[in-house]
């Protein structure tokens, strides 16, 4: 019943195929066979065990259903008044009552034992070869490798035009990011999961890992992924308006390639730090600022800078964006407590902060005319 061939062909599949299939866009997953009707088998030992337990409990439920509904349908057929059935008057049987109190209890034990074993394994986060810190933000993920000093954001890559039905939807519609999380194959990787604003949840179905990302808490989970590949999941805790648009992609590399990748990222991080001491022209700054704005700010304040009345204030013509530059810098770096405006000083580097503030002051007809250099931001952060 639980052999590999059948795993990909759950019972419901055949019923479903017979049902309506109008526009089929069935894309085979890169890795880890994906089913349209059942839980996926996944690629880790844990996900396999979870799948097996899922199928076990599903079949137990089906069996209970068959027995209970079987008796019921037999009665409906045989004991109907229209067939001349005469009602009996029994209404008690202590033996029966005891039997169907004890029997379910025994069945439960058969489910509880494997569930307890699997849960114990899931909770064993010891002896990890690599720690990755995952931080949920509205509405993107930050991945950091504390040991290597590498960190970056990962956000949705699906173009807005596809979402708004202005362009045909691509293969990995809503499940594609600009920068996936990268981990080595065959190593125990520990995920340290937290959040910076509201509660999110990091779910990677192929690893059977789901943990809430909670501000102020660090949750732990782990995976050993034997095969390199690309795996996709989504945020699974309602986290505001773009909740449906913060996918999770994990790229698993062979160990050697992973080391090379992390080395490259370290170099890039060093180069980025060099930019901090440079000066930029207005044009360069505006161009970079537009990019940062669209990636980081536009979800709330909208690409037009007009915000969403009542929820997110407009920047176009705003008192802050057109007022003294220190005030503008202050709210972007430190956020505004009690509102959804986050402290971006911790999320963006000085180059990006200078660029995006300059952009906000000069886009959409704001035309204040002044600009910031990375060094100005650095000085401000240091306390002027």
């Amino acid at each position, binding site marked *: 019943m639980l052999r590999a061939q059948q795993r990909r062909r759950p019972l419901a599949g055949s019923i479903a195929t017979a049902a309506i299939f109008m526009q089929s866009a069935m894309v085979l997953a890169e890795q880890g066979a994906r089913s349209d009707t059942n839980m996926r088998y996944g690629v880790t030992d844990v996900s396999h065990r979870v799948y097996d337990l899922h199928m076990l409990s599903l079949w137990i439920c089906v069996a209970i259903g068959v027995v209970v509904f079987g008796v019921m349908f037999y009665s409906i057929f045989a004991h109907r008044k229209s067939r001349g059935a005469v009602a009996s008057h029994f209404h008690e049987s202590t033996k029966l009552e005891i039997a169907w109190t004890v029997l379910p209890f025994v069945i439960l034990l058969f489910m509880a034992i494997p*569930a307890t074993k699997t849960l114990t394994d899931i909770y064993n986060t010891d002896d990890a070869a690599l720690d990755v810190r995952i931080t949920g933000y509205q509405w993107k993920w930050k991945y950091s490798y504390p040991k290597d000093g590498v960190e970056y954001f990962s956000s949705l890559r699906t173009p807005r035009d596809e979402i708004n039905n202005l362009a045909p939807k691509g293969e990995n519609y809503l499940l594609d990011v600009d920068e996936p999380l990268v981990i080595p194959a065959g190593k125990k990787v520990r995920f340290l999961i937290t959040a910076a604003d509201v509660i999110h949840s990091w779910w990677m179905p192929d690893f059977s890992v789901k943990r809430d990302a909670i501000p102020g808490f660090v949750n732990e989970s782990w995976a050993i992924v034997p095969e390199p590949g690309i795996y996709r999941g989504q945020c699974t805790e309602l986290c505001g308006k773009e909740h449906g648009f913060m996918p999770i992609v994990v790229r698993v590399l062979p160990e050697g390639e992973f080391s090379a990748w992390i080395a490259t990222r370290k170099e890039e991080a060093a180069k980025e730090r060099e930019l901090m001491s440079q000066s930029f022209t207005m044009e360069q700054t505006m161009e970079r600022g537009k990019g940062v704005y669209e990636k980081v700010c536009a979800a709330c304040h909208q690409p037009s800078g007009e915000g969403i009345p009542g929820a997110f204030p407009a920047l176009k013509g705003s008192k802050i964006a057109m007022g003294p530059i220190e005030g503008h810098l202050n709210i972007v770096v430190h956020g505004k407590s009690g509102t*959804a405006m986050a402290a971006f000083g911790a999320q963006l580097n000085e180059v990006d902060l200078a660029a995006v503030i300059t952009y906000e002051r000069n886009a959409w007809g704001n035309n204040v005319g002044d600009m910031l250099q990375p060094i100005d931001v650095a000085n401000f952060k240091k306390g002027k």
Partner: protein
Amino acid sequence: MGADHHGPAKGLTRWLFTTNHKDIGSMYLWFSFAMFLMGGTFALVIRSELFQPGLQIVKPEFFNQMTTMHGLVMVFGAIMPAWVGLANWMVPLMIGAPDMALPRMNNWSFWILPFAFTMLASSLFMEGGAPNFGWTFYAPLSTTYAPPSVTYFIFGVHLMGMSSIMGSINIIATIMNLRAPGMTYMKMPMFVWTWFITAFLLIAVMPVLAGVVTMMLFDIHFGTSFFSAAGGGDPVLFQHVFWFFGHPEVYIMILPAFGVVSEVLPTFSRKPLFGYSSMVYATASIAFLSFIVWAHHMYTVGMPIAGELFFMYATMLIAVPTGVKVFNWVTTMFKGSMTFETPMLFAIAFIILFTIGGLSGLMLSLAPLDFQYHDTYFVVAHFHYVLVQGALFAIYCGVYYWLPKWTGHMYDETLAKTHFWMTFIGVNTAFFPMHFVGLAGMPRRIPDYALQFADYNMLSTIGAFITGFSQLIFVVVVIKCIKSGKQATDQVWDGAHGLEWTVASPAPYHTFSVPPQVR
């Protein structure tokens, strides 16, 4: 009726000032039906958006308002008041009482509700929109990050809570004090028993809900940090307090359903309920267990493994008393002499579909599996099976069962059966495919989804529209039944037993002024 010199007052004041349990019961039922149509409309907005991938009809921020309002209105506006309405109508009739024990308070408990829901619904028109943080309103999304209308939501919840607490005090007082001579506790009809236990659950948990929203109010307006980690608080605390209310809450919605089904099945099987006393004990056990399983809604928050295991085992245990109930119902039908009028159809559908929801609940109780199921459409399928095919079906079951007693006319059986079958097909088409998309990985509360989920979502939407429009048939059945129809006998159904069937049809404005003797 002609001799009835204490008839209802005339005009609007009859309804405004009434202390009559039948009038108040009717108002509850009409109100809840109006809320059901409103919550259903919100559901159709959600399903329309999900008909195809991409954003077509609404924006994500409005989508979130719709999921939130749909949940709140259905739970607090449709299902709960419908049960209170049925209790108002039937509990005094079933225990031989002349009215509810606290009639003036009864009037208040009802009249609070229209104000509470006007307040909640008005938030749709406010700047920043209606509550958009899900009906579970997890902090800090519902505090620091909430739209300004959250304050109206909080006061709305307070009003609903007051209404529920007063309603349940009234039911407990009525059952404890006004039973007819000879009606001992273990002779009470199952519907009365299940409501008796439900009322205690309500009194226990509604103050907890009031507490949690008050803590939110303080976090939002008065600078406290109950749920903000930055201020030394704890966002997970919110979930513990909420679900300490929330889990008993779902049993508040389902226990009276058990009662109705336990009334209807014996009538149409023409055979007494099997295992009456074990049904009573099973209901009480379920109610007790409901207080010690709340954290199974939170398996993924990162509890210590000891907590995780405790809540898993406790949750699995619920299957035992629930199983007893289902087995007893099936055995009640066994060797009966069944006919299949509309209430019986709803009761049988309830048993089958609620059991399916119960079995998926058993799967969800296993913590390691919940890591894959949690916050996906599998959960959405599960709770719609127990709340729509469960609670709602049982409400319809009860309404059709007692409608002839209320109106004095038999309803149109053909039309009623059409309503049943259309609803049955609609809800299963809507909710069964949700199991598939959920297992395949579709998270809940998203306005747009990956392409692999497209087919089943389209199917769900079609089912939702069939369900929605079929409810208009019900309106026709009820109005027809009020205005005309075959005169109902006092007993109405040939297999019916109980005090409510000893009074005239329609039930006179005042009943049991002289208490009946129960042997």
